[in-house]
């Protein structure tokens, strides 16, 4: 019916598509196909596989080596969206500039970013890490304790973020948050930011770091930040973790207070 010539004429389009979006195809392969394959083969979840690897290859008590082992696993074996080495360096720099005492982390997943933040905290600072999924929280707990951080530095809260934020002041006795790190579901960024504003936990000079604002992207969050005028905001451009060609960014917001 449709002749071969017309079908052949579509060949340049297919080639263009494949070449232009080759990094996205690679990401899809690693994040989805390889994961499904290993899920069927081993029966463990992805985070448990990661933890097994870290347990066998890292030195306990040394956060540096745990982070490096995680990076190695994510680059070579499978893909987990931790913050990654490049964006992690940006985060370390921001942490060392601000030296926060109270840090809130939304979405610890495997505990990679928790260990990274806790590593850079000064003495006497406290990190509250919120994770919604119970199994991931269990893994994160093990990873944090493996890294050698005890209970008065890092506290892991297992509950959805929108339920925790109103209770932070009452149950956990927090007056002000110096740094908030958002790395959970991108849909929740804007709601959680508004909840934090409403709860009065952000003071002048508080920093909010939001990861993955360009890919997969949080457009509502960025729109809210631009419109509200409460923040001095900047987007640090980098590449997606463990991937070379996909552009991503981390938004750094400094709360200015209501004028």
């Amino acid at each position, binding site marked *: 019916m449709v002749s071969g010539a017309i079908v052949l004429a579509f060949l340049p389009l297919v*080639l263009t598509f494949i070449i232009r979006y080759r990094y996205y195809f690679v990401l899809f392969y690693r994040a989805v196909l390889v994961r499904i394959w290993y899920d069927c083969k081993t029966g463990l979840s992805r985070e448990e596989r990661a933890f097994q690897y870290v347990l066998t290859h890292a030195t306990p008590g040394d956060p540096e080596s745990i982070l490096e082992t995680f990076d190695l696993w994510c680059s070579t074996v499978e893909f987990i969206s931790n913050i990654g080495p490049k964006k992690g360096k940006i985060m370390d720099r921001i942490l060392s500039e601000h030296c926060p005492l109270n840090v809130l982390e939304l979405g610890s997943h495997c505990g990679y970013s928790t260990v990274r933040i806790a590593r850079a905290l000064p003495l006497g600072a406290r990190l509250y890490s919120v994770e919604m999924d119970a199994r991931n929280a269990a893994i994160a707990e093990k990873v944090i304790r493996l890294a050698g951080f005890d209970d008065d530095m890092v506290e892991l809260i297992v509950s959805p973020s929108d339920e925790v934020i109103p209770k932070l002041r009452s149950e956990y006795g927090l007056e002000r948050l110096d740094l908030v790190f958002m790395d959970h579901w991108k849909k929740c960024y804007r709601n959680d930011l508004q909840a934090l504003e409403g709860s009065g936990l952000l003071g002048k000079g508080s920093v909010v770091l939001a990861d993955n604002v360009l*890919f997969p992207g949080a*457009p509502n969050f960025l729109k809210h930040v631009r419109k509200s005028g409460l923040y001095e905001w900047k987007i640090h451009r980098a590449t997606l973790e463990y991937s070379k060609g996909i552009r991503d960014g981390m938004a750094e917001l400094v709360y200015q207070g209501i004028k």
Partner: protein
Amino acid sequence: SVVQESQEFVEKYEGAIGKGKGRKLYAYKVMMLKKWMKFQRDFENFKTACIPWEMKIKEIESHFGSSVASYFLFLRWMYGINMILFGLTFGLVMVPEALMGMPYGSMPRKTVPRAEEANAMDFAVLWDFGGYAQYSVLFYGYYNSQRTIGWLKFRMPLSYFLVGVGTVAYSYMVVIRTMARNANEDGGGDNNCFNFSWKMFTSWDYLIGNPETADNKFASITTSFKEAILEEQESRKDDNIHLTRFLRVLANFLVLCCLAGSGYLIYFVVRRSQKFALEGLESHTWWERNEVNMVMSLLGMFCPMLFDVISTLENYHPRIALQWQLGRIFALFLGNLYTFIIALMDEINLKREEEEMVKLNMTIWEAGLYNETVGVNSTTPPIAIHPADIPRGPCWETMVGQEFVRLIVSDTMTTYIMLLIGDFLRAVLVRFLNYCWCWDLEAGFPSYSEFDVSGNVLGLIFNQGMIWMGAFYAPCLPALNVLRLHVSMYLQCWAVMCCNVPQERVFKASGSNNFYMAMLLVILFLSTLPAIYTIVSIPPSFDCGPFSGKSRMFDVIQETLESDFPAWFGKVFSYASNPGLVLPFLLLMVLAIYYLQSTSKSYKQANLELKKKLQTVSHDNHVSAIILCAIPALT
């Protein structure tokens, strides 16, 4: 006030302040001179204000950079040329025939045939330029071959021929003159010192009072900074030259493979369609009948995207990359041109064979008619038959004109629809789906489209080539093109401001103007070749057009020389067109061109040397000024 009074006094007695004798005459002369200068200045202002679309283009330039604006400047320039061509064809060909020629219905060639009369007014037929549109001043076939028409004794066939030649000659002249002017403006290289300082301290315009103008100025300064930064970056890049060369060779090889593949595909499809045409078009499906058009449109849409992706290997300056991209798409479109011309030549041959048969049939028919009337009455009354019933010969020139007009119309429609769907619909989807999609559509996959400079420029150039090819056979083409360019300007200006985002790497397009002109010149040359070939070698139809009855179209010149000019003129002309005289003249012209070329090169060289000397002198002055200032500080 005192100032005004004194000004009036000086103006009144200015002449008297000058010479003693002949005071009045001198004063009068000075006054006239001043009035003339004022008039000239006002006229210059008026001329500048009359330039159409200046504000629109400036606004686009401030947001999108000079490369996108160069397309719109090119479009405006084309519009000017097409206006002149329209003036020529409308005023000297269409209007005389419409006003002073024989009216509709008086001759077979000017009347819709009886068989087609029923649906000659249908919109579908008119859109296809058949029916009443075909039998009108819009096409070649309507024109009568009478030597003079009307009370003015207007020489219609001569005018038709000369307008056809004149449009081509005018186009050549204008293109080459513009190229020469652009080459002058380029000069021998800019003075690039303190680029950023100049931009930083002198960019703002303190006379701006309107907020929107201020926003535009802000955008344009930002864009010009981006352009300057890019130029600086490009001039500093120094990386592995061997790897770059290898990658460029590889990229060119890949592009050649793609061009060869698509060329072979087009050739294959054209051969198949010729086979189908021989078997009769009705026995094939819609897909097979329109195979050639579909394959050409698809390749024309998809191959440029592939070239764009391959060119990221090459790592050129964006201006050079744009020129390479233009050249490659040009080579691709030549394939399209080739198929179109092959198809046209086949149809012309078919029509000419038909013509022979019709000539035969007509003599038989006329004889039959004559015998009938003689049989009734012995005298021969005038045979009164309605022109619509007389069989007429096929008119290949009108068919060619119709093909060109249909091509232009379908091309225009395709462009506008692609613009609306590819740019506008995409922008609407990205803006409104973004509220409920999992990834950021604006920053990620589809996002807003960028303005495709190369595709649009080439579309414009090839479109103009079609006009030049077909204007001889369809005098309505320049009018159609003027309308199309007018609508394009407004539509594309709106689409660019509404749906497109600026490119990431914004570059200065100053060198591109001559490149577009060079491509236009090549297309002008390529498109006049087929027209000239058909004029010189194919005899005109015997039954339609201003040259019917002649053995070659250019015989009209011979006829004019014999009948309208005195005898000695014809003799002089025949002497002048003697090859013995023409060849030495051509040789002299070639030598003159070579001489002028070498002198202009040496002048350019001298210019560059002077500029360098000027730079070193100013540098020395600068250094010595610093030393002079430093001496008091040291002591």
